[in-house]
């Protein structure tokens, strides 16, 4: 096996793992802001308990988001050094902005939010969570700016074989950015909402205590997922316009594709410029599932008089449907990323020129090592998540009040 194939496999594996976690992060953090705001405004302890329970699941999920994200970030330099060499001047900027604007603050705020219960004023504590949510959206936005640039390079000029930035605003108005960002955010809300609905359904089916609590989160989760599936569909179809225009070789044939391939052959020499069919397969299944999930709307009327809970089988449906959004986001990314082949930066930098000059054996070891490491951690993380979800909202560790104990030892100054 050659280094290129191994590097591509490694990127596909690690990003897929990363995305399975961040899609939940983005969705749940939005719902949590709603829950904690309701607690702040009403002071009703029900909302506090909901915030603690869902917050606990959110924080466990977050762990793997960070761990896999760090691998993603290093992978560009480790395996794709040609990417930074030829297009780093342009592609690097949104990534640098992302780390400084988003991740840095996000982690700092999250640490304070986790440890700030009972220590910070409630308004400050809520503000921290809002900060976490805003920075999470910012990180999704900037990574999509970077990804959209790879899909359709704009705002640059090539001098001495290296791309230089000429117009940053073109990166922000990239036709492959807007609808894709909306689609990703809507898919995240859908996933977060379906997770909330499914976990609540599990508790209602097992008739655990806290009926009222899980009834509330079932309703929130269901309404949010129904609204977001429509957004997902809307943004999804809206992507066909720009994609067909700037990436004629991506899905399907036609004269545009032939013209594009003739142009590339003239410019870069003969080669195979059609993307693998995997891209169109991914697209097809995603759209199929996307229409199927539209049935979420049919469950909404059953909220009337709690029919959805009394009939029970809708709860089973929600539970069984939970893997669908996760599988679908991977299909969607396969469509987008495999459809970009054989380019790293569409029509500008062929994938094989971007890969690092690392021996294949080393690359294979790193592929196996990171896949096993992240895979094992991902499975462990889901097991811990499932256990925490099953344990219920009786006393999550997150936000547990400290033991009442007198503290009268005076604080010492540090540098004394």
């Amino acid at each position, binding site marked *: 096996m050659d280094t290129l194939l191994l590097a591509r496999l490694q990127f596909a594996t690690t990003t897929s793992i990363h995305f399975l976690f961040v899609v939940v992060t983005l969705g749940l953090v939005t719902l949590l802001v709603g829950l904690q705001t309701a607690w702040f405004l009403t002071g009703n302890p029900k909302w506090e308990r909901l915030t603690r329970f869902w917050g606990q699941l959110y924080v*466990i999920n977050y*762990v*793997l988001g960070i*761990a896999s994200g*760090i*691998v993603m*970030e*290093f992978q560009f*330099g*480790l395996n*794709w*050094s040609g*990417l*930074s*060499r030829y297009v*780093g*001047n*342009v592609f*690097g*900027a949104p*990534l*640098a*902005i992302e*780390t*400084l604007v988003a*991740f*840095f603050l996000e*982690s*700092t*705020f*999250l*640490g*304070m939010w*986790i*440890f700030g*219960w009972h220590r910070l004023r409630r308004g400050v504590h809520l503000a921290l969570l809002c900060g976490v949510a805003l920075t999470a959206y910012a990180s999704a936005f900037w990574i999509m700016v970077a990804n959209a640039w790879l899909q359709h390079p704009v705002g640059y000029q090539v001098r001495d074989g290296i791309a*230089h*930035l000429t117009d*940053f605003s073109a990166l922000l108005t990239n036709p492959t950015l807007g609808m894709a960002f909306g689609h990703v955010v809507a898919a995240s809300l859908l996933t977060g909402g379906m997770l909330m609905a499914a976990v609540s359904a599990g508790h209602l089916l097992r008739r655990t205590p806290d009926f009222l609590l899980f009834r509330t989160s079932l309703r929130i989760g269901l309404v949010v997922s129904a609204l977001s599936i429509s957004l997902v569909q809307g943004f999804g179809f809206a992507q066909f316009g720009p994609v067909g225009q700037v990436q004629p070789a991506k899905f399907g044939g036609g004269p545009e594709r032939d013209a594009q391939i003739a142009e590339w052959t003239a410019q870069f020499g003969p080669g195979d410029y059609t993307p693998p069919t995997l891209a169109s397969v991914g697209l097809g299944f995603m759209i199929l599932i996307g229409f199927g999930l539209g049935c979420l709307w049919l469950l909404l009327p059953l909220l009337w008089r709690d029919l959805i809970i009394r009939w029970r089988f809708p709860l089973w449906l929600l539970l069984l449907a939970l893997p669908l959004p996760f599988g679908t986001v991977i299909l969607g990314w396969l469509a987008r990323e495999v459809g970009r082949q054989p380019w790293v930066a569409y029509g500008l930098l062929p994938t094989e020129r971007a890969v690092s*000059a*690392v021996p294949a054996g*080393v690359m294979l070891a*790193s592929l196996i090592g990171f896949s096993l*490491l*992240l895979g094992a*951690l991902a499975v*462990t*993380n889901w097991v*811990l998540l499932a*256990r925490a979800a099953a344990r219920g909202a009786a006393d999550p*560790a997150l936000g*547990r009040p*400290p*033991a009442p*104990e007198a*503290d009268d*030892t005076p604080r010492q100054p*540090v*540098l*004394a």
Partner: protein
Amino acid sequence: MELAWYALLGLFFASYFVLGGLDYGVGLLLARGGTPAARRDALTALGPFFLGNEVWLVAAVGILFGAFPTLEGELLSGYYPAVVGALAGVILVTAGVQLRSRPATAGARAGWDRVVVVGSLLAALGWGALLGGLLQGLPLTADGHVTGVGHLFTPFVAAAGLAMAALVALHGATFLTLRLPPAAGAATARLARRLVPVALAAVGTATVVGLLSDRVRAAAQQPVAAVLLPSALVAALLVARAALARRRPGWAFAATCAALALPVLLVGAARWPYALVSGTDPAAGLTVADAAASTPTLRLLGWLVLPLVPALLGFQAMCWWVFRGRIDGRAPVYW
């Protein structure tokens, strides 16, 4: 302009070694075993700062990618094994610390603690080896690429890795001396005093091996800095020892912070004006100016960084202020 960005890059990496070093130091010290309660206290002492510490690495690599793209690619792929080792360690620590308290059984928690120990060791050895590798130069070819990874396996790189592990362990111990309740703090103070000679020996060995190595001597572009900065590192360790003996843990901690920041300064200053030194063909080295992104990119990022960095530092300072002081029975516990 490149110098300013190089300094900012150094600042972020140095902050990462100081703050991330806390995480790995506390992590390494979990290897002492101790009661479950003692291990939990150590992690509670670290608790609120942990996420904010780790993210300095993410930000440092972000700056590296944005402002020095060419360096990013060649640095990470050129030192592949060291970077991958450190990265695996970072991931194990990140996951281990945050997940160890989710299972309720003591056995599972002890298992996760071992994951944290292994991860901390890997991270410290990996970053130490990377710094050592940078000081020793690498076989850059005329077209600016590095092929192969064998150049990394030298005694100096190994010594640098071990020195980093020793420094990090000492750093963790001085931090716990400051943060744990007085009785437990006194015990870690004794441990820290015993770790100072270990760290001195490890740093001394790395220095001597480096002085004996042709490659390291040839790679040093600024001999004055290459001699002065290791001496400053030794001085910092001596200050730490004196402060521990006089029961001034705050000063000891300040000294070990300096000891973890100095290697970054050493790597930056000793090789100036090069960002990567070529051992095979001196002319093939990558200078800082050549490694930097082109002017429009740097200018764009500059407008962003100027207002942002004070805000970033401010929020981190807020975190340290809110959770300052020794932990006690009322300290928030999560991992």
